[in-house]
Structure formats: structure tokens, C-alpha cells
């Protein structure tokens, strides 16, 4: 059984006990434990079930590569599925439950898949469930979905918050093992601003477990000094519990800091997401140990040798009393020695190599451990945990030579450098035959913006698997750790240092294993991919490594192949009779370890999900109980419902009141762009379809803007302020876009024209004062002459009203007597209140966007976004009068001359009134006879605006109709979604006050 040892444990604090629960069972751990070590200390070897066959799964690793020991951590608004127990620091009250089983971890019905696993080889679902057709959606797929899926789905939102931060540095070092510490120190001593990231809570990497001395002093002392040196330097920042998650172009690095995972609910953000721009990135990310492929290598109790060592040394946890070690390299001997030193039994070390005579094997022999070379595991015995192993010759086919009883197996198939961050942005790899692993190719690094090498790699991540080689590499001048921060070169001048470690390629154990054994050798523990599956994929022609991966799901589990990829590749290469470099590797995609989505979303939630633009009157609208609608980042009042009113009733009241008394609209969102300069008139003549250069000072003119395609893009009233100044109104959503558009042409095409633009949308608040009592209101406010004579239609004047400095535009989008009053934004709220107050006696009511829409539709005015959709030209809307025939050029003119746009067959704007007075359904099309070549019903037009007019007490509509203006009086049919049609008569689009008498007063 696995248990806590009486002594040792460099990371745990035996004076600080914590209580945790696993599947409701109370357990004791210590501060400094990971959840994995605490579970092992409590003999909880079985921790989960695999994805496909629901086989029992135990802890196999001690780091982020763990594929098995994933749990549902916490509950309710703090439930976190698929949490890696090996990366979870325990805290008092931690609750965890195991995943992917029913009804319980020990007894899981889903394990039936295991008993029929022969019928469920790789890709079996592509070959079956084909008939009968409806069964996939309704029967097979739901079963598959429910048996897959791992962790529990949360049911509520997240109780925690997340923070995002930016950081900049000359050199970013990822990983604080010996190599990373040396690299950080060297860069810092060169004067670089350095950030050092470490995923663990403490620095040191594997060195405290795997080494005794560094540079002649004890590893503990060396680490303490290295850390102290770095912390003493102002130009170094160290962040622990922070994973370098992804490397992106031009030195952008994403890092995930687990701020409060181990102190949940303490008020701090759960994670902090760092967006770092680094001049140079050094990865010191170490290496990950590989499993060996032997039959039964997935049973709980079979663990990586390095992990066993970690648990013993770091947490004083023994995975078993009797541990068999199986390996193809020297490093696993350290595990045997560590176990022995802890007083535990190592019945045998099975070494697949023919000889093992290095220092470590000799030390093991000297310690009295039985070492067998040329040996392999034929099969691991046991059910829910290991009970023993059958030993065979590695060279043979698995004939059992002896059986050894044990309760754990520590395996080492060699070490794979962590090349993920090197590869994320295009760094290329070399196959290193000495250690049977991919290593970064320094000649083909990922490139920075200036073409220099963006990433360099030090330590085990570079394939240097022994400390002397790492130190030698640092000592030799020009090593990657010594970074030039200025004048970087494309290739690092790296003296070639070779590791003394040799790892032979042992992909299958024993090498001649028959299919019965190969179908019990796991490559991907979580996804249940076996050696036989990869071989099947190769036989079936899924020969690209990507095909094999996708066909078998190898490496697609939550560890993203950290344990399985190289072993799978080795098996595939053998099956294809090719070398591994020929077969290639799959692409490494960010993130290195999964990153919480909440951290990526940051604080953009709820009210501050996006920036909110408020007009100066916004608060007043809120107090008035306005119902808002989003318009870009603005929120505009849609209507102002009173108690007991529906929105529709409110809108109708607002229309009728504005038409009969007085309405006030917050028009501040309207875009306002100043265009100024000697060439401003010439410029506006290019921007607008009409002529703006001839507009007299003091006058207003309606204008249309098209894109170069000729399609109508924006409209608004332009006012000539003085000889060289115009003010262009745009739609509310269009201000920023149109301003950018103007700047584009001024800067990139007509850069010799002397024109200056400024977007002053937010500098002014604007109130539309609309209705028969509009002038009376302004007169009550007093201060300037707003009479018909002094301020005629389509003119503007500066002055004061009620003591406010104003610019009054006499323009109308409603057909009523109407003024738009602009005041400096700082006066907006007060001016609005003044209008409301003074308007009380005149029947003033605020109105919203829907009332505005109805009133403009009653008058037949077009609305950008309703009558236009990016495919409509002004000519379609009967706006030819606003297009200059004289101008040689304007934006869109050439586009409109193209055959399809100039065609007389286009749909054109007309009005419609239904025969029965009803409202034409929004979005409806006008049907035509017959169907087209694809069997679709022919159409001849569509509705663009359709409303109930409270003024006329009937439905009114505008729309586009083939040859529309020539078909007045004709009855056409609009489709409804229920299959019927609505009949409507074609008519003029102006429904109300055709002669404009209401505004002409």
C-alpha cells in the first residue's frame, strides 16, 4: 500500500496538518503536499477512470504531465473539473471527487467497455453506427457523449475573479531549475531586465531531488544562494506558481499565475494572466519522463520513476512497500536508491539494456539491489492495483522467466525535453539519437519581428540531461544563457555541449511482443490508446503522424500527449518501417498546460463586459426608467415606458405626443466631425455624393457617403461653419468609422491636400426639440431669435438658450418643426433638465429611438442600416437628387457605373400599404412567380422598414421593389413565415404631410 513515511519530505510541514476530502472520505495531509501526494499518503491509489474503457486509473506522474489523476475540485460556484492533482496544492477543507464513473469510482458500470474493448479498437466508430441513419443522432451519439467527457459540468457561474496584467522585459526565462536560474542570473548581470517564471511554488526544478551538489556545494545551499542573488537584483522579477503557457509572435508570452488556487475565497483574484512582451525568451523548461510500453502498464501503481522519487523525497510518500523498477536508462536507478534510502524494498531493477555499468547502476548494485539487464516486463499483474510483474527477456516475445510480487512499478523510458514553447511559434526540432528525443534545432529558431532568434533553450529542455553538461554549457562563452539584448543575431553562438546521458529507443517491451500483449500496452492512458491501435492505424493507411493522432486520439487527451507522443511516434515509425525524423511530429499548440477560460476573459464580465459609452444625459434617462438598447457601445433609450405601459404603448404615446405637442430626444450619440482647411470643400466633394464646397456659411445640407464600391455607407446633415470649416453629422454607429475613413483618404491618397479633421462627437451634447411646440420651448428658454425668419429650415445659428451656449440647427428627421441644439458636453445634463422643466407646460416628453424610427418612416426618410445593408446604392433609394451629376469624381462614382449597379433592373424604394391595414412582417420578401434554377421561390423585392403608425392608425412600410417607382398602385404579395402572404399596394413612401407643411412654420 502507499503511505506516508515517518521521516523526510522536504516540501511538507508536518506541523501544519490539513484536512481534505476525496469522494466524501476525510483524509489528512500536510501543508506542502500536492493533492496527489496527499492521496497517496492515504493509500488512495485508484483516483479515476479512463475515457473510453473506464479502466481504473492511478497517479502516474508528479507534474503537469499527469494524465490520470484529474478530479472535480470544489463544488457549486467553485467547481473546477479536470483539475490535476499533481499541480494542486492542498489546503484545509479541500474537497475533491473522482471523474468519469457511475455509480462509483470502485464500481463503475462503464467498465463494460473494457470487457468488450476488443470490439472497440481505434476508429471503431467510423466503421459502425452507420445504419439505421436516425440512430446516430438519437441512440449511438448520446451514449457516446455520456460515456465520454471526463469532468462534471459546472452548473453556475464563477464565484472567483481574475486579473490581467502586462509586463515587459528584455529577457524572459521560463523555468527556474538550475539552468533557468543560471540563465536569469547571466542575463541580469548583463544588465537586462529579467522576468523569471516558475510553475511550482518553489524554485529549483528537479535538482533538489536528482542532485546532491551543484558547483561543489550542496544543492540546497546552491539554490538558496542563487535565489538570494536574483532577489537582490533590481532588474529581476521572479514569479512562482506561474506557468509560461504560450509563446506568440514578436516576443509575446502568455503566462498564467495561480494566485489564489491554494487559498480559495481569500479575496484575491484566482489567477492573474500575464501578457508579457520579451525581447528574448529563454526556455529552461526541463524534460518529461516517458513511460515504457509493456502489458498492463496502465494499472494503478505503475508510475514514472521520477515521480516515485519526487513523492518519496519531496512529500515522504511511498507508493508501495515493494517497488519494481523498470528502465532503459540510468536515471531510474536514482529512484531505486531513494526508495532503498527510505527503507523500502526494491525487489529488482529490470533494465532493458544489455549492459548497465554507469555510476548509478553500480551504486544500486553496491546498495544490494538486484539488477537484471536485458530484461523486461512481460505483464503487470493485478486489477485495481499492481500485485506483481512477470519478467521476460527484452529481446524475446514475452516468455515469462519469473514472477516478482510487488505493489508498485517505477518505470522510465527516458526523458523528452519540453520543447513546447520553442515550437509554439515555429521553432524547428532535430531528432537526437543519443537520447532518443526531439531537441530544439538552434539553426532554425522561431523568429522575432527583426528576424532574430526569438527563443533559445537551456538545460534539459535543450537535450542536456545531466548537470555537468548543463553547467559546462553555461560556462562556455556564448552560451544561450548569456544573451545579447542589443543587436541580436539570428543564430546563437552556442558551443556544442553534449550530454553524457544515453537513452536507447525502446518503444515496445519486450521487442517481439505478440498482439495479445501489444493490445494491453497503453500509450495514452487517458484516451485509452494502445500500441495495437497505432499499429492498426498504420496498417489502415493513416500513415501521417497527424492521421494516426486523429484516428486513434493519441495525444489528444488533456495532457496533449506529454507522456504519449514520442512513444506513439516510435511505435508508428516501427510500423511504417521508417525513421522517426521521417515520420515527423505533430504540431505543438499553445497552451503548454490548460489555462482557465475565466482568466482569459479577465474582468470583462457583467456591466463591464464591454466599455460603456454614456451621453451626458445618460443618468437622467436611467432615472426616468428608460428601456435601453445597445447601439455600438452606447446604450440609447428605446422608449420611456410609464407605469403600466408596455414598450409598444410607450412608443405610440411618444409618437403622438411629439406630433401634437413636443418631444425631446437625446441626439448626443450622433456623430460630429469637424473638417477644416483650405482644401476642406474639395475634400468633402469627394467624400459626399453631393456638392458641399458650395454650401453657404450658416447653411445645412443633407449628404450621402458611399464606399468605393458605390454602396451607400452613411448619411447626415453637413453644416458650413465658416469659410474653411464644415461640421459633418454622421449616424450614431458611424462616427468612428467615418472619421477613420476620412483620415484614410487624407493620409494615404490626397496627402497633399490641406485638410484637418477632428471627431468631436463626445465634445457636444445634442438635444432634438421636436413638435409643434418646439419653437415655444426655445422661446421660453430665451436668449436667441429662433423665429422662422431668423433661423429658417436647414440653417444654423450660434447663441444662448436659457443661459447655455448653444448651436441651434434647424433640421428635421421627423417632419415636425424641429431644432437640434448642441451644447458643450459639460452642459448636456443641465440643458436637458432645463428643456424638460421648461417643456412641462408645453407637453414635453422624452422619446426614444423607436419613436424616432416610426416618425422618420411616416415621412419616408431612409435609415442607414434599415434601407441600406451594404448592397444598396443611393439610386436604389430614389436619392438621385443628392448625387451630383456635375462632379467629375467622388468616392463610389466609378463603382456605381458597373453593369450590375447601373442596371435598370434593380430593386428600388417605394412605399407599401397593406390592403387590410395590417403591418407587413419585418424582413418579408415580395414573392414573384415561379422558382429559380435551384428550386427557390423567385422574389421581386423586400420590405426594409415596417411599422404600425400610431399617427395614421395603420401599418406603413417602405421597401425595395423591382421597377418599383413605375408600379404605383399595383398590389404585391409579401411572404409570411407560416406560408401565406400579405397583400399590399405600392405607393409613394411619404405617408405623412407630403407637402412638408408641419416643419415649414
Amino acid at each position, binding site marked *: 500500500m502507499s503511505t506516508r513515511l515517518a521521516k523526510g519530505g522536504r516540501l511538507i510541514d508536518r506541523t501544519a496538518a490539513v484536512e481534505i476530502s476525496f469522494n466524501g472520505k476525510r483524509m489528512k495531509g500536510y501543508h506542502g503536499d500536492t493533492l496527489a501526494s496527499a492521496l497517496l499518503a492515504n493509500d488512495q491509489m485508484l483516483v479515476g477512470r479512463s475515457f473510453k474503457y473506464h479502466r481504473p486509473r492511478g497517479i502516474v506522474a508528479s507534474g503537469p504531465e499527469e494524465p490520470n489523476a484529474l478530479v472535480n475540485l470544489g463544488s457549486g460556484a467553485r467547481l473546477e473539473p479536470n483539475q490535476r492533482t499533481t499541480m494542486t496544492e492542498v489546503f484545509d477543507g479541500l474537497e475533491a471527487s473522482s471523474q468519469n464513473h457511475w455509480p462509483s469510482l470502485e464500481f463503475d458500470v462503464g467498465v463494460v467497455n473494457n470487457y468488450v474493448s476488443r470490439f472497440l479498437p481505434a476508429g471503431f466508430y467510423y466503421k459502425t453506427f452507420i445504419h439505421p441513419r436516425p440512430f446516430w443522432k438519437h441512440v449511438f451519439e448520446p451514449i457516446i457523449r455520456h460515456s465520454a467527457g471526463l469532468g462534471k459540468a459546472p452548473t453556475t457561474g464563477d464565484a472567483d475573479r481574475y486579473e490581467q496584467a502586462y509586463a515587459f522585459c528584455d529577457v524572459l526565462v521560463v523555468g527556474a531549475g538550475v539552468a533557468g536560474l543560471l540563465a536569469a542570473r547571466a542575463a541580469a548581470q548583463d544588465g537586462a531586465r529579467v522576468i523569471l517564471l516558475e510553475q511550482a511554488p518553489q524554485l529549483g526544478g528537479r535538482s533538489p531531488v536528482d542532485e546532491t551538489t551543484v558547483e561543489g556545494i550542496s544543492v540546497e545551499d546552491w539554490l538558496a544562494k542563487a535565489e538570494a542573488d536574483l532577489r537582490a537584483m533590481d532588474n529581476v522579477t521572479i514569479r512562482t506558481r506561474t506557468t509560461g503557457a504560450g509563446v506568440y*509572435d*514578436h516576443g509575446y508570452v502568455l503566462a498564467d499565475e495561480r494566485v489564489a488556487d491554494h487559498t480559495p475565497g481569500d479575496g484575491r483574484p484566482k489567477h492573474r494572466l500575464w501578457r508579457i512582451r520579451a525581447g528574448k525568451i529563454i526556455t529552461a523548461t526541463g524534460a518529461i519522463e516517458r513511460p515504457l510500453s509493456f502489458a498492463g502498464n496502465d494499472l494503478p501503481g505503475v508510475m514514472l520513476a521520477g515521480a516515485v522519487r519526487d513523492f518519496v523525497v519531496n512529500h515522504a510518500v511511498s507508493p508501495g512497500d515493494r517497488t519494481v523498477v523498470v528502465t532503459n536508462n540510468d536515471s531510474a536507478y536514482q529512484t531505486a536508491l531513494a526508495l532503498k534510502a527510505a527503507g523500502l524494498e526494491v525487489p529488482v531493477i529490470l533494465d532493458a539494456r544489455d549492459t548497465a555499468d554507469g555510476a548509478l547502476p553500480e551504486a544500486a548494485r553496491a546498495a544490494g539491489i538486484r539488477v537484471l539487464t536485458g530484461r523486461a516486463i512481460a505483464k503487470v499483474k493485478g486489477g485495481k492495483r499492481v500485485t506483481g510483474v512477470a519478467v521476460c527477456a527484452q529481446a524475446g516475445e514475452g516468455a515469462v522467466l519469473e514472477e516478482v510480487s510487488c505493489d508498485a512499478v517505477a518505470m522510465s523510458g527516458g526523458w523528452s525535453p519540453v520543447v513546447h514553447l520553442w515550437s509554439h511559434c515555429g521553432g524547428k526540432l532535430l531528432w537526437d539519437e543519443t537520447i532518443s528525443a526531439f531537441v530544439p534545432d538552434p539553426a532554425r529558431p522561431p523568429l*522575432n*519581428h527583426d*528576424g532574430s532568434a526569438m527563443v533559445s533553450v537551456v538545460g534539459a529542455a535543450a537535450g542536456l540531461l545531466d548537470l555537468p553538461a548543463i553547467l559546462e554549457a553555461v560556462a562556455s562563452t556564448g552560451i544561450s544563457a548569456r544573451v545579447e539584448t542589443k543587436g541580436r543575431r539570428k543564430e546563437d553562438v552556442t558551443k556544442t555541449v553534449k550530454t553524457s546521458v544515453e537513452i536507447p529507443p525502446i518503444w515496445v517491451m519486450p521487442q517481439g511482443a505478440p498482439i495479445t500483449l501489444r493490445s494491453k500496452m497503453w500509450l495514452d492512458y487517458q484516451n485509452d490508446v494502445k500500441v495495437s491501435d497505432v499499429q492498426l492505424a498504420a496498417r489502415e493507411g493513416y500513415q501521417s503522424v497527424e492521421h494516426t493522432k486523429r484516428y486513434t486520439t493519441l495525444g489528444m487527451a488533456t495532457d496533449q500527449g506529454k507522456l504519449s507522443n514520442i512513444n506513439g511516434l516510435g511505435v508508428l515509425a516501427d510500423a511504417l518501417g521508417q525513421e522517426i525524423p521521417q515520420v515527423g511530429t505533430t504540431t505543438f499548440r499553445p497552451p503548454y498546460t490548460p489555462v482557465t477560460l475565466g482568466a482569459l476573459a479577465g474582468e470583462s464580465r457583467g456591466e463591464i463586459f464591454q466599455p460603456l459609452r454614456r451621453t451626458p444625459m445618460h443618468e437622467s434617462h436611467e432615472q426616468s426608467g428608460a428601456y435601453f438598447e445597445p447601439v455600438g457601445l452606447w446604450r440609447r433609450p428605446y422608449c420611456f415606458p410609464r407605469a403600466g405601459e408596455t414598450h409598444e404603448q410607450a412608443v405610440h404615446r411618444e409618437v403622438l405626443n411629439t406630433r401634437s405637442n413636443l418631444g425631446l430626444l437625446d441626439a448626443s450619440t450622433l456623430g460630429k466631425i469637424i473638417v477644416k482647411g483650405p482644401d476642406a470643400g474639395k475634400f468633402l466633394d469627394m467624400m459626399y455624393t453631393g456638392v458641399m464646397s458650395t454650401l453657404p456659411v450658416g447653411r445645412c445640407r443633407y449628404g450621402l457617403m458611399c464606399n468605393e464600391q458605390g454602396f451607400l455607407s452613411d448619411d447626415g446633415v453637413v453644416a458650413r461653419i465658416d469659410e474653411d470649416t464644415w461640421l459633418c453629422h454622421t449616424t450614431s454607429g458611424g462616427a468612428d468609422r467615418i472619421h477613420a475613413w476620412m483620415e484614410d483618404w487624407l*493620409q494615404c491618397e490626397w*496627402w497633399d491636400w490641406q485638410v484637418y479633421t477632428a471627431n468631436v462627437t463626445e465634445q457636444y451634447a445634442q438635444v432634438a426639440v421636436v413638435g409643434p411646440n418646439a419653437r415655444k420651448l426655445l422661446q421660453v428658454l430665451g436668449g436667441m431669435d429662433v423665429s422662422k425668419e431668423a433661423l429658417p429650415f436647414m440653417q444654423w445659428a450660434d447663441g444662448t438658450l436659457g443661459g447655455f451656449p448653444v448651436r441651434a440647427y434647424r433640421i428635421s428627421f421627423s417632419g415636425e418643426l424641429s431644432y437640434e441644439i448642441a451644447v458643450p458636453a459639460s452642459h448636456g445634463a443641465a440643458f436637458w433638465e432645463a428643456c424638460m422643466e421648461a417643456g412641462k407646460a408645453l407637453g414635453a416628453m422624452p422619446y426614444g429611438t423607436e419613436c424616432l424610427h416610426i416618425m422618420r418612416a411616416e415621412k419616408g426618410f431612409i435609415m442607414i442600416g434599415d434601407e441600406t445593408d451594404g448592397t444598396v446604392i443611393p439610386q436604389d433609394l430614389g436619392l438621385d437628387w443628392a448625387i451630383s451629376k456635375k462632379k467629375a469624381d467622388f468616392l463610389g*462614382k*466609378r463603382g456605381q457605373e458597373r453593369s450590375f449597379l447601373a442596371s435598370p433592373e434593380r430593386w428600388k424604394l417605394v412605399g407599401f400599404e397593406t390592403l387590410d391595414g395590417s403591418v407587413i412582417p419585418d424582413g418579408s420578401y415580395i414573392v414573384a412567380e415561379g422558382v429559380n434554377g435551384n428550386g427557390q421561390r423567385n422574389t421581386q423585392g423586400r420590405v426594409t422598414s415596417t411599422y404600425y403608425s400610431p399617427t395614421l392608425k395603420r401599418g406603413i412600410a417602405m421597401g425595395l421593389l423591382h421597377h418599383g417607382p413605375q408600379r404605383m398602385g399595383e398590389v404585391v404579395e409579401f411572404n409570411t413565415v407560416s406560408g401565406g402572404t400579405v397583400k399590399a399596394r405600392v405607393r409613394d413612401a411619404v405617408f405623412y404631410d407630403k407637402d412638408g407643411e408641419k416643419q415649414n412654420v
Partner: protein
Amino acid sequence: MLTLECPYCGVMADETELSPGYEAHLKRFGPGASPEEFEAYMFARKNPKGVHFERWRHSYGCGKWFLAARCTATLEVFGTYPAQVSEPPADIIAKIQARRPDWQPDWKATK
């Protein structure tokens, strides 16, 4: 996540400060242009895998449009320059050729 140096501000601007504007040095064709000329101006794009000249605006900085020579296959930036030129300046060409010796301009220099 690109960084481009704004030739006006001189700052290395993060992509989030910038707005992209696609191919640079397009010649505008207006009224009087043939259908082929106008179509080419509006739609035909070099879209090279390699050296590309493109427009960027320092939208959340100085607001200026500028041009960049960039490799679309590696995202290396050879240089940036003001937008008020009809073809890439000689120093930019030299910078490109320093790193891409085989690359040749596909236009005839006016000077």
C-alpha cells in the same frame, strides 16, 4: 501578436494599438477607368507568401496611417515608413534585400 514601429511616434506599437489596412501602394482608379482597371484596383490582390507591403493605422496612438514591409510567411517586419509615398523607399528595399537576397521588387522604380 505583431509589434510594428510607428514611423511617426517612433514607438514599438502592439498590434492591439493598431488597425490593419491590407495591401499598400494601390493606385486608385476612378471615373474613366476601364472595367478591368477598376476591378483590379478594388479586388485583385498580390496576397504573397513572403514579402508584402501593407497599410496600418496607429489607431490608439497618434492616429496616423503608415506602411509596413512584412513577411507573411514568418511575420518578420523589414521596416515601416510613412504612408505618403507611392512606392516603398530605397532604404526599405535595402533592408528587405539584406534579409531576402533573392527578393526583387515587382514594380519599376519611378526614380
